[in-house]
């Protein structure tokens, strides 16, 4: 039989355009194949620094996201009751005029009555600046319910962070320890890295209550009990100390281990660093025999001893406090083993493996470098142990401190920014913490006036808080108040509840961007929708008078908006992935990128960022209008990307600056900058020379370059803050010292949790709940092929995973007489849900878990109301309280980390009961959301 002849060189496209993916937060480079203006195929861009040609399950399904029937198609104005889904289509001019009128009134009267929160926003460089220009302190993106514990713990400790601010040295590491990484974060960079480790046969250890995804391919899985990672890491430190396997040289050179801490119990200076007249911290010099400035290079600091200062006060190196804490029995492997669910011998063995790799498999790169003091070193020494951690650490109310312990472990081993260790990504390292302070103190929020600084920053003392004289919060989310002093990303999860309770005050406009706050991003969904629709009993008006929402898709939140501003898909827009925002840099050098529209929208939608600039101009915001009152960026977001300068010669994009496009980092505006990016595949990457690729916290050539590039103010070394004095300042304030002290009701909590030493405490909700009544931990993680609620509306991805199950340990299931497919009630102190279970072995026996954000509200996302996402799928969110139980005096704190305000999703405790003789539909079910004309799928129907 003859074979048919096949054309193996089919050309199914007529054009290929590069841009940046937006199917999750990784922001990989993609190539989009087009035929007659239709998207045919999307693949990874080989030249891109983030993904180097690969693409993930989500990225390759982008085409279905782009053509989703859930796309919004026209501005809409609510005409029925809020939440009823009754809208009428309006024109953009009417929409923007109306929004402007609401916003102008707020700005004229009291700018903080605008709460502007943006969810998975990749333009925080713009949105944060817009809020500053508007004059409201009430701005943040979704970091408060995502990863602020990781960002804050890292930035306050070593001026970098897990998350996107750094990465393991995939090329050189010989041992990789992964803590609590839900599978979406990060996506391709971690997968590429794991692939490289596998090629080299590097041992991978995953610490995670659930063995899926990355844990599945790890050489060793440690099925830890949720919320106890700090104890486990602390016990590793205990073992390293006890066996004298720590890097004392590294600690002396790069950390504040030798800095002297004043011992004066009860005094206002107790626990602060001893300082000289210039305010410089002191060390005790072993050779000279007296205290010297810690900033000097030519010293021999003592790590051990008690010393008398010139003024007679006593002080000891902070290292002694650290060592005493972690050598104490509280962190001994035998003591923590049961709580963590990890055998003592395993803890000891992992500590031994870490020590062996760090100290006996030392790595040496023959690359000379110059340290901060100008001393030349002829090689770079590496301790090839690397670690990475994400949401399993951050989403607990002890996450900030737990993450600090992980960094302490890394630093004790001498592994930060050394060959084989954990490497910074530009613009990091920055001073620990970065110098910017949040604006929004009383007197800084004024009618028709911009804020004097950005709304988000890093608090280091009570003086920096945004509180009034009585200690009351100034922000609607209570960020930077005594309740969440280090809330570097705000507390988006508290905004709706606080606004509805007018606590600390009411607002006039709630303005949200791509955040599904009435569903999978809300704690306690039923309560949240009640807040969104709550009316004032006297006036009958909504307590939150106006809700403006911008999104590309008909999410559950869209239905609760008064005014819908439809956004474009990611393939229809300009964007900049800016170093002023969340960077996409690699460890080898800084990078940024753009999105370009690869197709034109076929609907009456506008890119949100262009809309925001338009609103800014209509409101007359200084940065967005010219002196004659006309818009400064009439060409929209792309005009801003090219022409905006945050400070002279620094703009959103670092590449090809200057009129000729020959400067990088700093340079005048280049009118042809976007063309240059497009020519280069829509990204820019600047590879650092070898001698500045490591030890960057103390590498003079790097620090000088980073300072010339605008990443840091001055080329000073970055000293790791193992002992965190800002926390002690809060503790002292809570003990009554200083000019600004917390109100009585907050004091005990601050004394308890503002520990300047890294240390583990029990998660707050867990400590307050009856562990017999609620014996199980309940957590979620994301499947690799889904990114929050976008994924399960996607025609392809929902065929892979169209519903979720509750997974529990086989042993636990047998105890409860449960089989796969049985229905159970899951009961928390807040609520109950009814779901279907599956049993598995690879899960901590005290833990149940499910996939996050698969459950949909019936009628949302243009899915049919009987979609499995709605009828079998479910959220754990219903079980999670937004507030902790009442304390003495009736006050209820938010369910968050007491230091950073990070939402404590993973603190949830539940019990399970078999549900029999009930319908085979998950519960709760909410009224079906009505479709409306402004949704593409509905329009066609």
């Amino acid at each position: 039989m003859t074979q048919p002849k096949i054309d193996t060189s089919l050309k199914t496209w007529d054009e290929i355009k590069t841009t940046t993916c937006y199917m999750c937060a990784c922001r990989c480079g993609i190539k989009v194949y087009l035929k007659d203006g239709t998207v045919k195929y999307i693949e990874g861009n080989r030249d891109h620094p983030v993904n180097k040609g690969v693409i993930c399950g989500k990225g390759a399904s982008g085409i279905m996201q782009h053509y989703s029937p859930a796309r919004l198609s026209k501005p809409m104005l609510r005409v029925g009751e809020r939440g009823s889904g009754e809208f009428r289509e309006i024109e953009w001019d009417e929409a923007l005029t109306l929004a402007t009128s609401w916003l102008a009134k707020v700005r004229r009267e009291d700018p903080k009555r605008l709460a502007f929160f943006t969810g998975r926003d990749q333009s925080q460089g713009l949105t944060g600046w817009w809020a500053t220009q508007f004059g409201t302190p009430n701005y943040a993106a979704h970091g408060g319910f995502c990863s602020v514990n990781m960002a804050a713990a890292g930035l306050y400790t070593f001026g970098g962070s897990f998350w996107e601010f750094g990465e393991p040295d995939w090329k050189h590491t010989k041992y990789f320890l992964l803590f609590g990484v839900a599978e979406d974060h990060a996506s391709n960079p971690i997968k590429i890295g794991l692939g490289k480790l596998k090629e080299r046969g590097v041992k991978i250890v995953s610490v995670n209550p659930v063995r899926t995804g990355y844990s599945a391919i790890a050489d060793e899985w440690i099925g830890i009990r949720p919320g106890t990672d700090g104890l486990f890491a602390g016990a590793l430190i205990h073992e390293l100390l006890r066996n004298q396997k720590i890097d004392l040289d590294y600690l002396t050179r790069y950390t504040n281990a030798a800095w002297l801490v004043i011992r004066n119990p009860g005094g206002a200076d107790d626990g602060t660093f001893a300082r000289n007249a210039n305010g410089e911290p002191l060390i005790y010099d072993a050779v000279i025999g007296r205290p010297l400035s810690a900033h000097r290079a030519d010293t021999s600091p003592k790590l051990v001893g008690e010393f008398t200062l010139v003024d007679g006060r006593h002080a000891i190196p902070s290292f002694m406090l650290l060592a005493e804490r972690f050598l104490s029995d509280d962190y001994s492997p035998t003591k923590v083993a049961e709580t963590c669910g990890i055998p003592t011998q395993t803890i000891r063995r992992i500590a031994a493996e870490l020590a062996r790799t760090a100290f006996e498999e030392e790595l040496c790169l023959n690359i000379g470098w110059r340290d901060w003091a100008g001393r030349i070193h002829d090689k770079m020494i590496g301790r090839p142990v690397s670690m990475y951690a994400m949401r399993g650490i951050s989403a607990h109310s002890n996450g900030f401190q737990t993450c600090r312990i992980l960094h302490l472990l890394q630093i004790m081993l001498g592994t930060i920014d050394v060959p084989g260790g954990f490497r910074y990504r530009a613009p990091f390292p920055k001073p620990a913490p970065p110098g910017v302070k949040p604006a929004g103190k009383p007197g800084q929020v004024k009618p028709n006036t911009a804020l004097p600084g950005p709304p988000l920053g890093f608090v280091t003392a009570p003086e920096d808080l945004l509180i009034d004289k009585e200690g009351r919060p100034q922000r609607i989310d209570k960020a930077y108040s005594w309740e969440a002093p280090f809330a570097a990303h705000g507390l988006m999860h508290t905004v709706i509840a606080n606004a509805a309770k007018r606590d600390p005050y009411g607002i006039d406009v709630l303005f949200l961007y791509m955040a599904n706050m009435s569903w999978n991003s809300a704690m306690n969904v039923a309560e949240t929708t009640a807040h969104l629709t709550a009316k004032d009993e006297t006036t009958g008006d909504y307590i939150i008078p106006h809700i403006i929402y911008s999104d590309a898709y008909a999410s559950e939140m869209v239905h609760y908006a008064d005014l819908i501003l439809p956004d474009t898909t990611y393939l229809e827009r300009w964007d900049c992935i800016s170093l002023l925002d969340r960077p996409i840099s690699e460890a080898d050098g800084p990078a940024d990128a753009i999105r370009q529209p690869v197709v034109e929208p076929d609907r009456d939608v506008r890119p949100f960022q262009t809309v925001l600039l338009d609103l800014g101009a209509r409101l007359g915001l200084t940065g967005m209008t010219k002196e004659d009152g006309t818009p400064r960026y009439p060409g929209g977001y792309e005009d801003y990307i090219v022409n905006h300068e945050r400070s002279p010669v620094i703009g959103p994009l670092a590449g090809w600056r200057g009129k000729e496009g020959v400067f990088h980092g700093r340079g005048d505006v280049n009118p042809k900058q976007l063309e240059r990016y497009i020519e280069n595949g829509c990204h820019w990457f600047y590879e650092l020379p070898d001698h500045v690729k490591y030890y960057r916290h103390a590498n003079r050539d790097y620090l000088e370059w980073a300072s010339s590039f605008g990443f840091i103010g001055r080329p000073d070394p970055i000293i790791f803050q193992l002992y965190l004095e800002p926390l002690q300042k809060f503790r002292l304030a809570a003990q009554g010292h200083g000019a600004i002290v917390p109100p009585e009701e907050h004091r005990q909590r601050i004394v308890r949790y503002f520990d300047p030493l890294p240390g583990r405490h029990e998660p707050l909700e867990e400590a307050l709940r009856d562990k017999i009544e609620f014996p199980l931990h309940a957590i979620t993680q994301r499947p690799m092929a889904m990114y929050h609620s976008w994924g399960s509306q996607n025609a392809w991805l929902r065929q892979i995973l169209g519903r979720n199950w509750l997974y529990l340990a086989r042993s636990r299931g047998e105890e409860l007489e449960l089989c796969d497919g049985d229905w159970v009630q899951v009961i928390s102190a807040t609520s109950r849900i009814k779901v279907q279970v599956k049993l598995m072995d690879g899960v901590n026996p005290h833990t149940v878990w499910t996939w996050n954000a698969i459950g949909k509200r019936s009628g949302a996302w243009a899915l049919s109301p009987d979609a499995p996402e709605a009828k079998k799928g479910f959220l754990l969110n219903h079980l999670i309280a937004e507030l902790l139980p009442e304390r003495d005096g009736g006050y209820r704190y938010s369910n968050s980390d007491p230091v950073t305000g990070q939402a404590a999703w993973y603190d949830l405790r539940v019990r399970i009961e078999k549900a029999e003789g009930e319908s085979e539909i998950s519960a709760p079910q909410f009224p079906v959301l009505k479709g409306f004309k402004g949704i593409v799928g509905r329009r066609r129907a």
Partner: protein
Amino acid sequence: MTSLPTPRPNQKKLGLVIDLDTCVGCQACATSCKEWNTQGYSAPLNDSNPYGASPEGAWLNRIHGYEVKAPGEDQSRIVHFPRSCLHCEEPACVTVCPTGASYKRAEDGIVLVNPETCIGCKLCSWACPYGAREYDYDHGVMKKCTLCIDRIYNENFVEEDRIPACVKACPTGARHFGDLGDSESKVSRLVAERGGYDLLPEMGYKPVNKYLPPRQRRADEKMQLVQSEPVKRDGKAVMDDFFRWADRLLSR
């Protein structure tokens, strides 16, 4: 019934080598396959009821996850298993085909379906023990992995992109493509080094694609620190010891 081509000397056998030790089950290969093949040679791959109660469509590559607990082992293992056509040397799906629509290419061993002559009788999917064929209900024909026949020889691509979409996508590098008929090829060497194996060899279809088994885990090393046995002293003595050790001349 359809006959197989007579193997040539040094017969080229194009296929995939899939590393089960490295696959994290991310679905990148599955969706990349779907998006390429729904617009290329196999276009379109159907999706029925995509936004309804039971969405389903044709996928030429599906990923399954299995939890396996071997007797005597403390821990289970989760294995992600990508499944697609194995391009067997003696494929029953071809020999069973009544019209000749299902055929094995003489030049490279790729098993294909000719949509012009496929009558949609599904005999091939019954014959395939690997469940690797997908019936396209919208178009009434059988679809299957083509090893991206429209990519691997496609002159519109640069050389390095002439690989199947699934291989190009794979973020962990768990998928490899090459000539398994050439014992010196990279994929053949990988199979030799890692003990690559056939699925269901006892069936006798001689699959070309190979799977690399999960490596032995190294969780049981008897690793200990020198002083790792509990020290029979109180905490104070341990601390004193430690501080004596740490109290040394250090320089900044």
